[in-house]
Each structure stands twice: as structure tokens, then as C-alpha cells.
């Protein structure tokens, strides 16, 4: 690890009020400043990577709100992730990690097949029976939590149904590559289909290379750098074989990871070019705002927007989604308090650290309730899963929807 990055932290504390876990605990060990200090003291040989030490670090959601707030440009979330990667490089992957990250994720076909029993579980009515009889209590808590997050799955993943080339409508303004996130394709295929339709309506020819692999973000969550690099290399090569203006994604997590390929594969010129072309869908839609504006029909909804960490903190995108929502006629847009605070989903965090995830989530739910919104718009599958499930329980009147689905609804009128 680059020691320079650690000593750049001047311990001013500006990160503290933005850190979800510090806000909950007031503990220095649960703050970005404290985490940087822990890693630094490990590097300096003052502390060992004991179980407790690792436990403190693993409380980090890696939401990177601290990075947005840091005067010195220190990214505590990333530094913690980097520390974990280096440790993993030495320790190696566990059997399950190896299985999921190296044998399942790199193969979309296998992944889709692995998910199909879940579909059967839902369609056959088994899920209803299990939930009704409270059978989940018999499962280990982790499993029952995962089951609770499971939304209704689409009949078929979008990767299977979407054609490789979607032609532009009207005058063609360019060609974009569509990066299909695993969860978006498997779970939120309607939203991703809306994304493709919006791009096409704005005059983009959309190429969706079917062979594309996972972005590698799950590998990074498990600190498996080698696995991530393999995915990155494959995706860079695949997309480089097309002549593309942009590479578009509607998944905040994928977008943040894809934009880092150039950094991850240092020295690989294609990776740098790839990353420079990556755009979140909101960025592309804003560029075509004039044309989009003409196509939107009124939607009389009260709407608020939750900034996914991977969009706001990791990619610095805050205005574009709001600008798009404000373009929809008749929409009553209400700003969410602390809109860019993490919802507690944070990759697999809500399964790994359920207690803290729930505390972080509770704050988010309170702020959503206070807006009086009927629709909560966001644009990252992790947030969608987390908030759909939570709001269904506490605020069933609030619908959770991806930004592109809402815009598509307005476009079709």
C-alpha cells in the first residue's frame, strides 16, 4: 500500500459527520479517520491484524461518503478495501469465495442457471408457504436475511432476451455499448430494458455484447483482486472490439468499478480508454436533455431521490439524476434529507453486518417518510433491493423504482 496515501490524512475530522457508522456509534474506531489511523499503525508495525482489528475495519460500509468530505483527498473506504485486498493476497480465498467468484460469476450462463431454482421457489408458491409458516426461523440468520431481500424475479434475465444490437430511433447520434450488470439483468431486467429504450429513443444505437462478464465489483467486495482483474481484462477486450462513443451502465456499482479499470489495470492503454468512455445512464440522458424533454409526458407523482453511494460518492454524480427528474412534467420532486447517506445495503454488508446495516437503514427510512413521497427513485440494484424490501415492510405506500423506469414510464405516457 502507498504509505503516502495514509499520511495524507491530517486527522481534521471533517469526515466524521458524514460517516454512517460514526454517526451511529461516536467511536473513533468506527470513523474514517480512525480506520486510516488503524491501517497506518499496522503498516508502521504498531498494531497487528488481529481479529478485533479486522472487525473494526469490516464495520466500514465502503460508502465513501468520507472521500466526498475529505479536504485532503483521502479515501478511507478505498484504503480499507486496499488493505483487505493485500491481506487476501496473502491468505487466499475461502472455498465458497473461490466457488462463487471464480466458477460462477465469470460465467453468466452458469449464474443464470444458478438463479433459476430461486425462480422455481417463487413461482411454485413455495416461497409463500415458507414465509407464511415462518419456516425461515429454522434457517441460519444469514440465509433468512438473504431470502428476505429476494424480490420477485423476472421470467427471464435481460441478457437472454435483449438483442445484441438495438437500432437508434430517428436520427442516429452515436453508438453506445451497454454494460449489463448481473443483478440488473437477473433481477431488475425491466429497468435495464427501459434504459436501452431510452438510449434508442435519444438516437443511440445500442450494442449489448452478450459475452460480457460481471464487472468484478463482487470480487473487490471479497478482496479478490486477481479475480477482478481477470473480469476487467475480458470486458476491456470485448468492448474494445466495437467502435463505441460511450460505454453506458444503469448500475451505480458497475459504473464505479468500470471507471476504475484504467486504474486497476495500470499500464493497459485499452483499459484507460475503456474507463474514459464509461458513463452512468444519467450522464448520457442529460446530454440529450432537449430531445428527451420533448418526449416526456406528465406524471402526477410525489417523488424523491436517494443518491447511491456508488453514484454520488464514487462517481461524483449528483445533479444529473435530479435534473432528469425535474424535467418530467407534473412531477412533485422533493429533496430527501441527507440524500447521499448510505442506505445500509453496501454490497453484502447488510448480510455481513446486519445489526449496523439496520441502524443505518433506519435513518434512511425516517428521511424517506418525512418527504411524503409516493415514489423513491434511485439507480443502483443494491439500494433497490434494500429499500424495496424495507419500505414494503414499513411504508408500503412508497414504491421504489429505478430512474430509467420512471423516465420510460413518462416517455410512453
Amino acid at each position, binding site marked *: 500500500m502507498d504509505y503516502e496515501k495514509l499520511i*495524507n490524512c*491530517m*486527522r*481534521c475530522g*471533517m469526515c466524521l*459527520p458524514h460517516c454512517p457508522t460514526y454517526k451511529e456509534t*461516536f*467511536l473513533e474506531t468506527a470513523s474514517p479517520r480512525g480506520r486510516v*489511523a488503524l491501517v497506518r499503525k499496522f503498516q508502521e508495525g504498531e498494531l497487528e491484524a488481529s481479529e478485533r482489528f479486522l472487525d*473494526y475495519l469490516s464495520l466500514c460500509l465502503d460508502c465513501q461518503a468520507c472521500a466526498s468530505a475529505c479536504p485532503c483527498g483521502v479515501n478511507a473506504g478505498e484504503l480499507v478495501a486496499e488493505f483487505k485486498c493485500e491481506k487476501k493476497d496473502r491468505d487466499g480465498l475461502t472455498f465458497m469465495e473461490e466457488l462463487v467468484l471464480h466458477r460462477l460469476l465469470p460465467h453468466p450462463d452458469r449464474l443464470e442457471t444458478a438463479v433459476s431454482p430461486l425462480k422455481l421457489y417463487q413461482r411454485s408458491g413455495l416461497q409463500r408457504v415458507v414465509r407464511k409458516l415462518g419456516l425461515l426461523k429454522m434457517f441460519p440468520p444469514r440465509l433468512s436475511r438473504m431470502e428476505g431481500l429476494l424480490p420477485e424475479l423476472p421470467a427471464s434475465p435481460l441478457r437472454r432476451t435483449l438483442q445484441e444490437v438495438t437500432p437508434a430511433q430517428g436520427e442516429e447520434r452515436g453508438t453506445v455499448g451497454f454494460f449489463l450488470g448481473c443483478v440488473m439483468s437477473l433481477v431488475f431486467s425491466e429497468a435495464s430494458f427501459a434504459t436501452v429504450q431510452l438510449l434508442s429513443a435519444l438516437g443511440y444505437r445500442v450494442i449489448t455484447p452478450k459475452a460480457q462478464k460481471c464487472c468484478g465489483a463482487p470480487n473487490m467486495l471479497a478482496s479478490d483482486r486477481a479475480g477482478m482483474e481477470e473480469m476487467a481484462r475480458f470486458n476491456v477486450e470485448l468492448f474494445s472490439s466495437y467502435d463505441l462513443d460511450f460505454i453506458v451502465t444503469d448500475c451505480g456499482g458497475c459504473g464505479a468499478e468500470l471507471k476504475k479499470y484504467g486504474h486497476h489495470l495500470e499500464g493497459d492503454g485499452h483499459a484507460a480508454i475503456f474507463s474514459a468512455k464509461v458513463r452512468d445512464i444519467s450522464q448520457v440522458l442529460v446530454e440529450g436533455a432537449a430531445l428527451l424533454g420533448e418526449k416526456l409526458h406528465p406524471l402526477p407523482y410525489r417523488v424523491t431521490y436517494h443518491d447511491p453511494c456508488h453514484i454520488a460518492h464514487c462517481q461524483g454524480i449528483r445533479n444529473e439524476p435530479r435534473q432528469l427528474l425535474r424535467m418530467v412534467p407534473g412531477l412533485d420532486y422533493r429533496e430527501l434529507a441527507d440524500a447521499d447517506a448510505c442506505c445500509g445495503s453496501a454490497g453484502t454488508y447488510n448480510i455481513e453486518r446486519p445489526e449496523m446495516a439496520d441502524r443505518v437503514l433506519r435513518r434512511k427510512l425516517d428521511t424517506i417518510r418525512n418527504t411524503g413521497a409516493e415514489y423513491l427513485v434511485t439507480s443502483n440494484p443494491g439500494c433497490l433491493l434494500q429499500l424495496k424490501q424495507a419500505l414494503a415492510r414499513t411504508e408500503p405506500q412508497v414504491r421504489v423504482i429505478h430512474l430509467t423506469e420512471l423516465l420510460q414510464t413518462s416517455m410512453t405516457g
Partner: protein
Amino acid sequence: METSFINELKNIVGEQYTLFDKESLAVYGYDSTPELESLPGAVVLPGTPGEIARVMALCHDAGISVTPRGSGTNLSGGSLSAGGVVLQTSRLNRIVEIDEENLTATVETGVITSALHRDVEARGLFYPPDPGSMNISTMGGNVAENSGGLRGLKYGVTSDYVMGLTTILPNGELLKTGGKAVKNVAGYNLNDLLVSSEGTLGIFTDVMVRLIPKPQAKKTMLVHFPELEQAALTVSHIIAARIIPATLEFLDKVTIRCVEDYAKVGLPLDVEAVLLIEVDGHPAMVEDDAAAIRAICEKHRCSFFQTAATADEALKLSTARRVALSALARVKPTTILEDATVPRSCIAPMVKLIQETARKYDLTIGTFGHAGDGNLHPTCLTDERDKDEIARAHQAFAEIFDAAIAMGGTITGEHGVGLAKKKYLPKLVGESGIRVMRDIKTAFDPKGILNPGKMF
């Protein structure tokens, strides 16, 4: 620390709020002061004033030192403990009362300064002190350090607002001082004694502050000066013209360059000084003041004068000042931020002296700060691994402090003495000053267990 003592701490504040593992102690070994670290023996986070009193009494009996800490943003090493108990006040964070008839707010000691701002401003009221760390600093910490901020020139500093304090004394006893009565001359003014006591006399549990009506209008101006003296003269002449701006901030050339590199706000690189001026109050008066200020700036050959037309523009204009520290801090790993303060008529000679001292010791020092109240922040950009440069930085600051004292100023305008300025204090207050301070300390804390080793 002995297990039996730790167990007694746990009995008072609970196991969850008693920390003594290696990792926790390591991260409570610093605050925001560069270069200083010191390991405590334990950390407690009491949840009520009663728990604070019991912890104090326990430590008093055991002869173990206690150092209060809010969010740990102290800039003079004041929240560091050498082997004692660090008492973090964050859990006492209720805004107890906002009394709109008496215009007071009563808050628990761990309330975040900007949370109080939000609450009172929503009612059309105003609590002016706005230290740079206000988004995380605690009210108790602000009182203990007598924090200032950008609005000091017109509105004063924390001490100008403290009306009452509830304090736990070193032996665990409760002391109530001041209150809602605006006039109160009964006995020594213990309130004022406790403000800026840097956690050496007592631990606050409740703070009562004075509120004022929120100014109706505000106007923000940004002015560039090709000559440093002219900028300094402008500051003096604005005040001489009987105008007291809410904010009168200054950025020097080094700071301007760093801000532009970092934030690209459109500052020209060929100017010597930038002033950010804000006037507030009744709309008609704000208009008059802004016009008069413009005339003064033009008389002093400013090269650029912009008034913000909208709130968004005002925010943009003040960006340069708001990001000044960030911009400087990014240049090198270590940032030593000082707060030498002089009478405002000495701003120009002081800035010149800082620039000459930087050259003499071959250092990069950017200066920005509160020109209106003479409180400057010479900020040395360095690298803690470069021992030679660090030594030169300390020499340079020693000279800067000497000069500040010679000009009738002070070694610290708002950061406090703590550990960092301890050796300079005798020069400023003299032998008798130190003796009286020591005697006061002894009167409050005969066993010397509260935040020992700080100030003198």
C-alpha cells in the same frame, strides 16, 4: 490500567462504552493537531451528566487523570491524554431548550455546533460562532477552547454568547454558573473563567448560549488586489468608515494559487491578495454598506470587484475561502495550521513578515484567515518525514509568534494553548500571568487530575 479500575468504569458507563483495547487506545491517541500523539489508558463515553460526575469522582479518588474530548478536532493537542482516562462527551447530544422569549439555547455538551445553527435558524434566530470544524465540533469543546470563526469581527467569539454553564468539577461536584439573566454581577464571573479553560478546570455537561435575531439580508463580495498593502489598508479603512462586515476574509498569493489548482474557481494568479467580504443586516443598510465598500476597494486600486447577485453566486464566491484549507492541505502530506493573531492594523506587516520568514527558512507557508479581526492562519505545507524541514518550520513559527507578541497580538487567536503552544505562553502572559493561572488551576483542581500538562 488495572482491571479493577476498568471494571469500576464499566460499572458506571457500561461495558460497551468503556474502551481499553489496543486498537481503540491507538486511535484515541490523536486529535487534529499535527505531530502530536499520546496513548490514553482507557476511553469512556458516558451517557448522562450523572455518569460524568461518577467517573470524575472515581478518578479523583484513584488519582487518575481525566481528559475531556468532544469530536477530537482540537488543534493544540488539548484532547490528548498520557495514560489517563479520555472522557468523550458525544453521547450527551440533546438540544435541551430554545427559549424564544429570553433568546437563549440550552444544549448538552456534545451537541454539534452546526446542529444548533440549523435548529435556531429554522426559528429565525442566530448563533453566530462558526469555527471551521462546526459540522463536527461539539458545543462543549467550543466553550472549552473559546472557538471563533469567520463571523468573529462583527459578532465576536464563543465567549460573547455563553450565558450559563453546568460543570462537573474535578472531585465530581456540580457547579452551576450564570443563567438567563442578562445582567448578573454576583461574585467572580466564573462563566468567563471556565470559557477557554481547555478542559483543565471542569467538564461541562450543559451550555446555555445567547441567541440573536437572524440578519434579514446578506451580501457577499469578492475583491482582488494586485498589492498586499492596499488590501490591508482596505480592511482598516472599511472599519474606519464605521462599517463592520460580518466576514472580512483574506487569502494570500500562495493560498490563491493552491485554491485555483484545486478548485478552479477562476482566481487570477497575478494578484497578491483576495478579500471575501460579507455584510449582513437590514436590507437597506446592506445595500449602503456594499456600495461604500466598493468605493473603498476601488480607491485602493482593486483589480476586480464582484458582488453576488444570488444565493448560489454568493456560495460560489465564498468557495475560495471555504476550500482554502483543503486546497493547501492537498499540496503536501503534513499541514501545520497556526493562528497567530495581531491587532487588525498590523495585518500587512504581519503577512509580510510571514512571507519573509517562509523565504528565510525555505518553507511553503500559505496565509489566509480572518483579516477583519487580525486572526491569520499561516499554514505550513510540509512532510512530517522530512525532519529537517519540520525543524525549520518550528523555528519559523517561533519567530512568527514572537512578532505577533511584539505587535501587541497573541500566540493563539482561536485554537488554544494545549500542548502545542505551551512553551510560548510565558512569553505572552509573563511570570505573574502563569502564577495566577496556576493558582486558579489549584483552586479548582488541587490534585491536578483534570487534563494535566496542558496550557502551562
